[in-house]
């Protein structure tokens, strides 16, 4: 028996920003969101019902390779391996397709260690490379541009069967009971709360509380929704970026009126920035989803997260 790989992906994407105030439109939503938006997503904005036509740079960049790669499932043996070793490893890791697909991870001597499937291949492989550097030498990827999980599962099965036929062995990471590749290394941190709750009278201002939080922790993200279920695509994007950077960070849900009353407006005043999400590093406001995106691409992000 082999064990179905459960994808280590980021949080399920919630596609609507339930807010009448402004929030930012990330230019690189994940491919799954782009598909839904292209189909004409409807969401409520106050009294108006709007239809979103999404557009995404990173998606269109990948769409070309998606066309090449995934019109059909290639045989595992026919996919070119991407070697994730040496000086190019980091740039290769950051340029993997943020798309659904199946992937095979080979160790440094070229033995297949694990067959996985993921809603977001890039995040899964980055997580593997981070958690199990000794087992990740190269990967083979087949993007599966289908929203249906069954299609992904079917693709995964085909690769598994092909491998079984040629070697007679289940990849070690897929053996029953082996959780090396599938378990989360660390449980997700709970969201921070600014106050103990509505029954407690505050003796300090919200601004002071915000100030304390952003100075106490190295990286803090103020988001709409919780870390486990962000309620806005931009917040989701920010979490994905921080996850991909492999950095420890704290989150605060600005929509939590019970424990963070008034935070949603207070944080905008604090940073003099009109939108949420907002990310702070070492006490300093660094930006929202768009700025973070560009900082990652320009390599600035790594720099400011160092030391």
């Amino acid at each position, binding site marked *: 028996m082999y064990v179905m790989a459960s994808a280590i992906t980021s949080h399920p994407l919630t596609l609507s*920003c339930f807010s009448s105030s*402004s929030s930012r439109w990330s230019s690189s939503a994940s491919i799954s969101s782009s598909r839904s938006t292209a189909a004409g997503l409807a969401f409520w904005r106050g009294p108006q019902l709007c*239809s*979103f036509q999404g557009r995404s740079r990173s998606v269109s960049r990948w769409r070309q390779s998606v066309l090449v790669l995934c019109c059909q499932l290639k045989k595992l043996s026919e996919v070119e391996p991407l070697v994730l070793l040496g000086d190019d490893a980091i740039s290769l890791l950051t340029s993997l397709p943020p798309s659904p697909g199946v992937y095979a991870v080979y160790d440094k001597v070229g033995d297949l260690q694990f067959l996985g499937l993921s809603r977001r291949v890039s995040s899964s492989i980055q997580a593997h490379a981070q958690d199990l550097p000794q087992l990740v030498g190269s990967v083979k990827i087949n993007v599966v541009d289908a929203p249906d999980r069954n299609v992904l599962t079917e693709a995964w099965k085909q690769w598994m069967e092909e491998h079984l036929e040629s070697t007679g062995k289940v990849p070690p990471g897929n053996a029953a009971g082996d959780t090396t590749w599938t378990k989360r290394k660390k449980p997700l941190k709970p969201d921070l709360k600014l106050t103990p709750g509505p029954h407690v009278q505050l003796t300090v201002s919200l601004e002071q509380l915000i100030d304390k939080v952003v100075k106490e922790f190295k990286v803090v993200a103020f988001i709409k929704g919780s870390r486990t279920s962000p309620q806005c695509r931009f917040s989701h994007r920010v979490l994905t970026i921080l996850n991909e950077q492999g950095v420890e960070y704290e989150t605060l849900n600005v929509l939590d009126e019970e424990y963070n009353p008034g935070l949603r407006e207070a944080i905008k005043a604090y940073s003099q920035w009109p939108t949420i999400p907002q990310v702070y590093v070492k006490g300093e406001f660094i930006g929202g989803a768009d700025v973070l995106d560009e900082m990652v691409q320009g390599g600035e992000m790594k720099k400011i997260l160092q030391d």
Partner: protein
Amino acid sequence: MGSVTKEDVESTLTAKLQPAHLTVVDTSGGCGASFDIEIASASFEGKRLLERHRLVNTALTEELKQIHALSISKALTPQQWQDQHPSTE
């Protein structure tokens, strides 16, 4: 009430930032809820990305009250714009 149009955003940004290049795309499907902006302006000279975005946000303070989502996909200096689009001019 009246919602914000692409033209509103364009004219405000043109007046306040004198852009060398400006593209505003209404990504809301016409209801004025979200826009994607590419802008190149001499006002960005010597400023960090965050400050550039701040300039755009500040210029659009009024409009932002009604806009649901604003994405600034590019905020460049005219020189950077030229470097990225050598063939256009």
